[in-house]
């Protein structure tokens, strides 16, 4: 039942992909009922799914390569603070805010990259013993029913909060420096959006495994 559902979904998605792709006219022409044509179409669809998934993966990878560098200013800011305090007896006014902002943005923005790397903790007591197909079915349906609704809501509420914060030009009340806080709040919707994008790739991978019984 579930397998059928994901198959339908896969087809629907293919249709979208194909119609967007350069080969859409070709694919349309081949949309016959003949077996070889159908097989050809299947191959084409598969190639498209793979291409989309790969492209999304590359995007997440690229985001990871970008955001991972935030650790460097975090180290530098803290080290400067310690040196300034002990060597120059002049603690900085900004280090506290800078530290939590960089830390907060760092791990949130990295969540999509972690999803790509399969890093988010899962309990694999049972999972590890399942076939690729079962894993695919379970993952695809949970991405659909758990991941997308939850993260989409997270995105929407985060966006509301972020926009409100931007609107009133909210500043931090954590220190006398009082820097603006909305960029940090905006990290929530941005991270959620990145997660959703990478979620599409993960969904494609698991739906493929559910249908084909092997990894994409």
């Amino acid at each position, binding site marked *: 039942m579930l397998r059928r559902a994901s198959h339908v979904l896969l087809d629907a998605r293919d249709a979208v992909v194909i119609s967007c792709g350069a080969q859409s006219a070709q694919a349309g022409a081949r949309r016959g009922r003949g077996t070889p044509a159908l097989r050809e179409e299947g191959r084409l669809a598969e190639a498209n799914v793979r291409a989309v998934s790969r492209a999304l993966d590359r995007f997440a990878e690229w985001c990871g390569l970008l955001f991972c560098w935030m650790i460097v200013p975090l180290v530098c800011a803290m080290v400067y603070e310690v040196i300034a305090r002990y060597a120059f007896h002049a603690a900085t006014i900004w280090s506290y805010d800078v530290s939590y902002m960089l830390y907060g943005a760092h791990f949130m923005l990295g969540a999509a990259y972690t999803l790509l790397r399969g890093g988010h903790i899962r309990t694999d007591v049972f999972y590890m013993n399942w076939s690729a197909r079962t894993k695919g079915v379970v993952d695809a349906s949970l991405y659909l029913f758990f991941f997308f609704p939850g993260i989409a809501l997270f995105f929407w509420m985060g966006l509301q909060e972020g926009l409100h914060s931007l609107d009133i030009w909210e500043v931090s009340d954590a220190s006398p420096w009082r820097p603006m806080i909305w960029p940090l709040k905006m990290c*929530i919707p941005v991270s959620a959006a990145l997660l959703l994008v990478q979620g599409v790739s993960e969904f494609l991978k698991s739906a493929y495994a559910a249908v084909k019984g092997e990894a994409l």
Partner: protein
Amino acid sequence: MSNEYLGLILLGALLAGIFVGFPIAFTLIILSVVFGYIGFGDTVFYLMVFQTIGLMKEETLAAVPLFIFMGHVLEQAGLMERLFKSFQLILAPVRGSLYLGVLLTATLFATATGIIGASVTVMGLMAAPAMIKAGYDPKMSAGAITAGGTLGILIPPSVMLVVMGPVVGVSIIKLFAAAIIPGLILAGLYIGYCMVRSHLDPKLGPPLPRDQWATSVGQVVWEFAAGIVPMATIMFASLGSIIFGLATPTEAAAMGAAGAVLLTLFYGRLSFRAIREAALKTLETSSLVLFLAVASNVYGAVFTRLGTSTMMAETMLALPISPDAMLLLLMALIFVLGWPLEWPAIVFIFLPIFMPVVEGLKIDLVWFCTLVAVNLQTAFLSPPVAMAAYYLKAVAPKWELGQIYRGMAAFMVLQMFGLAIVFFFPQTALWLPTVLFGKT
């Protein structure tokens, strides 16, 4: 149906979701939102964002990526191998020298890494070939590597203790101080066990062949000064500045990370590639821990608001058993949970549920956290679902999984013994914090 019972169903649904094997963080978010909405309407949506922002502004947790970065830099630069080589050369004539080398490297390195997987993998990569070549007992070798590697999670600075602080509401510095002696007791137990057994039966761990011995006293001194002292200095400086209140854990973590980079430069191993790899791994590791923290934070808020945690605490406190028995029960629960679940899940999801009970029983929180930390460390070594075994098997394919398990089992017994020591002699955990900061 009252909200308290709704929370119980939420807990049940969560457990089911966890065991299906979907990433726990996402399961937590959707379940909290759905159950929260049923329980108290659209407040839950605001609660979700509010809890997330709250965690993102938790400055003490900035130490998490920094400590992870410190560990990964040292690892990427191959400094663990450097340390191990030094120990190997210095200890070569001793029976069981490689066990000792592994455990000493692990103990020292535990003050740099706060995450278990990393160190078991690296230790396996560098020590397993040497141990196989020297004809060491596979079981005991695997046990020493896995047990040594898991010390990273206990001996401060440990990421687990950093995140436990805000969860339990205890200062991280006190937790660090409390975990030092139990960590050293465990390391001591491992070393004692390996040394005594290899002494009684040299076949288990023969001294290394003559050609691997140091050629002169000078070489030994040089290895010690160049290979061990700089690493040890940086690690103890980082830990020491926290314990003695010179720097906040976040600052000390940053100093440690900067020190790690300098050390890499000192050994001529600094490269753009190494730093980038370390930064990438740091992003992944800290995100997996902290994003789960965010999700659990949302979940915890919903669970508490539904009133379930209060109800559970009251029910458990009303049980006609003594506080000690209750503590034992909690420890048993955590141990069982530690089998299938990884530590962040236990610390973020289940520890907050137990906290009201612990507070109700007036158990010292610092001592309790130390017990939990030692307990969870034990769970890493409990077959058949022990992460450490998989990490090791992946890098040392020559050893059978069965051999690794049996080796780990022996060390697990040692850990249980260590846990018993901390349980029956709370002073092992509480003495150092009391000396440093007064009454806890």
